[in-house]
Each structure stands twice: as structure tokens, then as C-alpha cells.
């Protein structure tokens, strides 16, 4: 039985279930656009969730393809290994990012995906939020001879660094200069000049999307939490990325918020019996997406919040406040702030964890490291140690992978999850005494 099937019978309300229906519709529409672009050759850009520059690309009507999303979708459909092994046969190491290998496999197999066909990239925008983005972009650059724009967003700098200070203006000028260069590439590819009003519309849509996304996250402060951050939350985040800067994205997030508020009003939680409220840190295992959640559900554990919804949501969780009176300057400023606060903030996120553990009344943290993502996973054991030592916040550290089934060990995972909940239960009993 799946997590979805175990939902309690919902009271009659047309809002309940609306988000998933809308999400499915939007995802199908996105795939249709990708397949259309593959067929008719309209300009398409390969971009990434951490800094897609969608505001500019939408202003040029350039179709945006997110290879991280298309790769994870192969894992959810059980076909990631077909692509991944094709890339390994081509020379790629078992020890590199599985998303990259799935994507290489897709391109080796004429870009045919279980959900449609990927277009040939006309261009690539890769931020430095993940170093693998840059290496990945170079693979397409070599294969398709397409322009690659590395959008360099200088991020968190270390001890004592405060986002928005410490040389921020120099960083901002650098980013603004790069955005102007990116616009030049888009103009060359499309043969059109930038329509600044289209850019403003897109930026305003991101402002609203970000505000709604933050409201969505805040709804999980309720008990029971109305959504699971690693199930529904992944959906919210996916649509927020694909539809960043569009009216459809704003409408979707409004639907999600309305449904969540209805669920709160009706007392419907993500789990029928919520016993432990958890923060998820890391990225999930898409090859065993539902099974992973079931291991927690069996103990009444729900992921009330996830760091994944912050960095992989493109940083909109901390708020985007574009000033459309000075569009490019403001775009640079806000992209930088979101990179420093959210996307590269994961390297030093213990204070944010402390804050949300209090705000969301959490019982513990699950740290999930994946071999495919050293960006997120490298320091997770240290963060767990830190919280155990300093804050007395219980932590579970487990490892698997995003898309590589060879790295999932059911018995080991279950043993560790069970042991974690047993400890949480004992701790609660001790405190109650």
C-alpha cells in the first residue's frame, strides 16, 4: 500500500486533491512543450533548479528544460538504470553524479524519455551553485556545440559572512554584467531584442510565487502538518521551478495554498496519525521514493519541512522582492541574495536548522546523503554531530542515491530508521516522566 492510498477519507471539498490534479496537468503541459520543441526546433535552454535565470528566458519565449527533473522522473518510473548504465558504458565513472549519467544516457538514446522527447539544447545556463552543473553543461557544449553561459553567483564566503554585506555591491555588479551577457546570447539565439516589459511581468510573477511559496511552507507549522515536505513538497518545488516567472506558476501555488488551508481547517494531516515531526536535510531517493517515506510513516513520522524545498526551490523560500523599476539591477541583487541565503547557505545551515526546529516544533532531523550530490551531502554527518552535541536535537544519518538503485539497501535503511524512532520514542517517554 502506498502513502497516497493510506490517506484518511477526506471530507467532501473540491479543494482537496486539487493541487495534485493541477500539478499533473502542468507537468504534462511542460512535457508537451519539450516534445514540441524537440520536433519543431524552437529555442530551448537546458537550465538547473538552483538558478535557472527563468525570468530572462521566459521573456524570450525560450523553452526551459530542467535535466535534474527529467532525470529524477526516470527514477520514479523505474527506468533510470537503463540510462545510467548506458553512460557508464560510454566511459563515465560509477562514482559521479547519477543525474549526469541518466542525462548522458538520455542523449545517447536520442533524447527519448519515458514522458516525451527532450529537445536539443540551443543554449545552456548553468550557475555555480553546484559545481557539477558546470561539468554537466560542458558535456552538452561538446556534444551540441551550443553556447554555455555560466552564471557565476558568488555565494556564502565562510566565517562571519553575512548575505548582502561583505563586498555585496561588487558581487552584484558582476552578476548584473553576466545577466546582460546572457541577454546578448538569448538575443542571438532568438533573433529578438529583449522586451523589458516581458521581463518585468516575469519578475512580478516570481515575487508572487515566492510569497505564496513561503505561505505554503508556513502552513506546516500547524499540527497535524497538512503536507509532507518530501512528497507534496517535492511537487510544489518542481512546479515552482518549471513555472518560475509565469502566471501558471502563481495560480498553481495559490491552488496549493488554498488546499492546505482547507486541510488545516478540516484537520486533515499528511498522516492520519502524526506522532513525530521531522526536518529532512539532503535530497531524497527517487528510485525508492514512496518506500522511503513509508519507513517513516510506519512510525508516524512526517517531514514537516525540508531543506530540499529551500535550495532546490531556487531560493524562493527566503523571499524574492524584485523592484521592476530597476529590473536588471534588482534581478542581479535578488539572485545573489537567494544564492547566498538559500542555495549556497546549505554549507553552514545549522542556525537555520535550529530556527526551524523551534518554529515548526520538530522532534528530530533526518540527514539523507546521496552519492550523486556532494553539493548537499558532503558535510551532513558533521551537521548531525553538531546538533547532537550543541542543541540536543536527535539526528538520523542515512545514505543512498537519487537515481542509482545499486546504492539502496532496504535492510540497512529500515534498521537505521527503526532505531532512530525507537530512540525518539524512548526520549519522549523519558521526558513525559
Amino acid at each position, binding site marked *: 500500500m502506498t502513502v497516497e492510498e493510506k490517506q484518511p477519507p477526506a471530507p467532501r471539498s473540491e479543494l482537496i486533491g486539487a493541487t495534485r490534479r493541477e500539478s499533473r496537468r502542468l507537468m504534462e503541459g511542460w512535457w508537451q512543450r519539450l516534445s514540441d520543441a524537440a520536433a519543431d526546433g524552437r529555442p530551448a535552454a537546458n537550465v538547473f533548479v538552483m538558478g535557472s535565470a527563468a525570468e530572462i528566458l521566459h521573456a524570450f519565449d525560450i523553452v526551459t528544460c530542467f535535466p535534474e527533473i527529467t532525470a529524477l522522473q526516470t527514477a520514479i518510473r523505474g527506468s533510470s538504470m537503463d540510462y545510467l548504465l548506458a553512460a557508464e558504458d560510454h566511459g563515465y565513472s560509477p562514482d559521479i553524479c547519477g543525474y549526469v549519467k541518466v542525462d548522458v544516457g538520455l542523449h545517447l538514446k536520442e533524447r527519448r524519455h519515458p514522458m516525451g522527447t527532450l529537445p536539443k539544447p540551443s543554449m545552456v545556463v548553468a550557475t555555480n551553485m553546484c559545481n557539477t552543473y558546470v561539468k554537466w553543461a560542458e558535456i552538452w557544449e561538446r556534444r551540441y556545440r551550443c553556447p554555455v553561459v*555560466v552564471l557565476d553567483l558568488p*555565494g556564502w564566503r*565562510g566565517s562571519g559572512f553575512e548575505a548582502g554585506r561583505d563586498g555585496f555591491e561588487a558581487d552584484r555588479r558582476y552578476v548584473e554584467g553576466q545577466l546582460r551577457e546572457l541577454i546578448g546570447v538569448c538575443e542571438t539565439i532568438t533573433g529578438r531584442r529583449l522586451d523589458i516589459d516581458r521581463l518585468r511581468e516575469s519578475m512580478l510573477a516570481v515575487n508572487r510565487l515566492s510569497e505564496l511559496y513561503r505561505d505554503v511552507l508556513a502552513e506546516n507549522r500547524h499540527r497535524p502538518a497538512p503536507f509532507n515536505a518530501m512528497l507534496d513538497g517535492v511537487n510544489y518545488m518542481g512546479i515552482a521551478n518549471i513555472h518560475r516567472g509565469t502566471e501558471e506558476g502563481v495560480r498553481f501555488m495559490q491552488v496549493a495554498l488554498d488546499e492546505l488551508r482547507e486541510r488545516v481547517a478540516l484537520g486533515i494531516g499528511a498522516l492520519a496519525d502524526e506522532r513525530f515531526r521531522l526536518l529532512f536535510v539532503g535530497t531524497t531517493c527517487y528510485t525508492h521514493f514512496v518506500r522511503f517515506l513509508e519507513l517513516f510513516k510506519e512510525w508516524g513520522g512526517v517531514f514537516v519541512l525540508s531543506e530540499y524545498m529551500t535550495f532546490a526551490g531556487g531560493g524562493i523560500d527566503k523571499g524574492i522582492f524584485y523592484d521592476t523599476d530597476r529590473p536588471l539591477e534588482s534581478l542581479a541583487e535578488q539572485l545573489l541574495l537567494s544564492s547566498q541565503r538559500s542555495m549556497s547557505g546549505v554549507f553552514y545551515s545549522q542556525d537555520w536548522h535550529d530556527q526551524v526546529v523551534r518554529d515548526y516544533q520538530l522532534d528530530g532531523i533526518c540527514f539523507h546523503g546521496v552519492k550523486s550530490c*556532494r553539493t548537499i551531502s558532503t*558535510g551532513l554527518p558533521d551537521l548531525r554531530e553538531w546538533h547532537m552535541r550543541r542543541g540536543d536535537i536527535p539526528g538520523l544519518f542515512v545514505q543512498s542515491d537519487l537515481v542509482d538503485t545499486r546504492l539502496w539497501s532496504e535492510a540497512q535503511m529500515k534498521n537505521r530508521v527503526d532505531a532512530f524512532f525507537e530512540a525518539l520514542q524512548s526520549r519522549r517517554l523519558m521526558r513525559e516522566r
Partner: protein
Amino acid sequence: MPMSAEDLIEECRELVEDPEFSAVRDWLDHHPGAKVLGHFQVYFPEEIAHAAGMLPVKLAGAGSALQIRQADARIAAFVCSIVRSALEAALSGHLDFLSVFVTHPICDAARHACGVWARNFPELSAQILYLPQNAGSSHALDYLRAEYARVARVIEQATGAQVTDEALRASIAVFNENRRLLRELYALKREAPWLVSAVEAYVLTRAAGLMPRERHNELLRAVIPALRARDARPQDKLRVVFEGGFCEQPPLDMLAVIQEICYVVDDDLMIGLRWLTDDVPQDGEDPLRDLARAYLQTSSHSPVQRDPRRPKEERLLARIRDANAEAAIVAAAKMCEPGLEEQVAYGQALDDAGIPHLVMEFEEKTRVFEQTRMEVETFAESLLLDLV
């Protein structure tokens, strides 16, 4: 009595294998109150630290000198050894002399290292120097100049000394001399590899990051003529370029195995110490800007620095051509995402150019090299037969 080349090389080898950083501790004994800046791979503009009176020290991993005990509890399992062993060195007190630690966005593990170090050593200033990944942007130079100025402020805070333009120019002169001497050493490797082995050139180079650069200049000034004067004859060995040592370093014994079979006529080992390929102006109006310009315009290549103006494959082919090499060893450290990804591109480029190459992996802490010996021997023999 002046020391022989062999003695000087042995001194360097001891430093490279010494997890206690004894030359750094000696320097501190002679400079009470002075500060040390440790910089992780690949490149750091050491002149900025030097201009403030600091000793810049290259942190290139502990090899097999340290057993990993504490770092495993802090770093995920699928991360390369160098990030782990550098942290182990710090956790076990071997780097207790550091006042500033700087890492770079060369890879995601190295960026994470800053957070881990900052949490575990709150008294230390743990920093990321954000070297530009968009080196082709016309705005990269202004940005990098400002980023160097930010790092200079961090250094000023740590030392209480000012990084003046005058001091920077003097430091640039010291480091220019060092780079010139290292270029001379590498020219000798290319021209007459029978006079200086791969291991010898390697320890002589790596020692630059482990002692005051003025002392290293003296050492190279003494050793290079002595190497040239060696009485050695060329052997019938395959001339190879070793690529893949830009960050984690292969064990010395692995290089020794390779040099028994081949002449390593050029490489990217400790490339960060040789990153700038030409002199930086010593009398410029804005020395920070001169350093930034040199990083962007007259520099080497590695898988962790993107520069669309100078594709890495072309740079590797040029390195092979310039060294008159017959083949390449394209190596990567285990779990090194950028290195392993670049191997595929390098392999393709070498295939296209018809240059034989051997692809291999290594780990700094490996102690047994029979497999390496067999692979390199088979590779070299097959090529020598072809050449005959």
C-alpha cells in the same frame, strides 16, 4: 659546505611526507606572533598573505601519513580522500598553527569543507575565495579584483597588518622568481627527463607550499644547476604527460612506479603552485588587479576551472605537444567528480588526436601499486613495440 642536489631533494621529500609541518613550526619559532594561512587546493594568490607578513601554506592532503579517525564521522562516505585527510590533520592538531583557512569553489566537497571547518574550529577564520567560474565574462576581472580585496581585509583582520600596494609588489617579485624557477625545473623535465625524475621534480615543487618562498627560491637556485650537471644518460623510455594531479595528489610511490617505466615529461601535479604561467607586473599601479588579471589571462588549466576561451582538451593537447610526449596518463582521484568527468572528455580528445593514453584512478592513501605497475608496463610495452 653547500648541500648536494640529493640532500636538498631529500629535505623536500621529508617535508612532503611530514604531517607535522615542521618547516612551518620552525618559521613560527623564528617569527613569534606571526600568522599562518592554510589554503586548500588548487590556486590561492599567496602574495596577498605574504604581503601581510603571513606564511601561506598549501594544504594538499595528508596522503597515507595519517589514519583517518575523526574525519569519517564528519564527512560523507563518498567524498574524496583529500577533503577527509585535510580535515583529519586539523582535527588531530597537526594544523593548530593556522589562523586562516581558505578553500575554493573548485568542487562541492571543497566548498562544504569550509562549513565543516567553520563549525569545528570557531576560533579559525574559515573562508571561501570565490574564484570566478565565468572567466570569459568581461566583468570577471573587476569582480576578482574586488574579491581579492575582500580576502586582503580578512587577512588584515587576522594579522593586524595592512596589505599595502608596496608590500604586494615586493611579494609579487618573490613569487615571480619562484614561478620562474619552477618553470626552469619543468623545462629541464621536458628537455632532459633523465636528469630529474618525476618524484624529484614533484617534491621540489610541492615543497614551495611548505616553507617560506624566499627559502624555496634559494633551494631551487642551488638545485637546478646541480641537476643540470648530473652525469646521467637517456634511456629508451616512453615519454608521457601525467594529467590528473591538480588537487588530490598521487602517492609518491605511485609516481616512483611510473617513472621506472616512463619519463614523465610534464604533468599537472600541484598545478596551483605553477598556476600563473608568466610574470605578474612588479611595478603596476594596482597590484591586486595585476594578480586578478594574471589569474584570468596567463594561467594554466584544470578540470575545476572553466574558461571557454581556452578549452581544457586543447590545453592538454598543447601540453603533450610542447613536451614532445608520445602518450598520456589520464588519471583521476577516486571520488573526484570533476576529475572523473573530465577523464571522458580528455579521452575523447586524445582519441581524436590519435594520442595513446592510459586512464587510471588513484587515491592518496594507497600503499600497494602492483596493479599500477602492471597497467603502466603493459601500456608502455605495447606502445614501444608499436614505435619499433
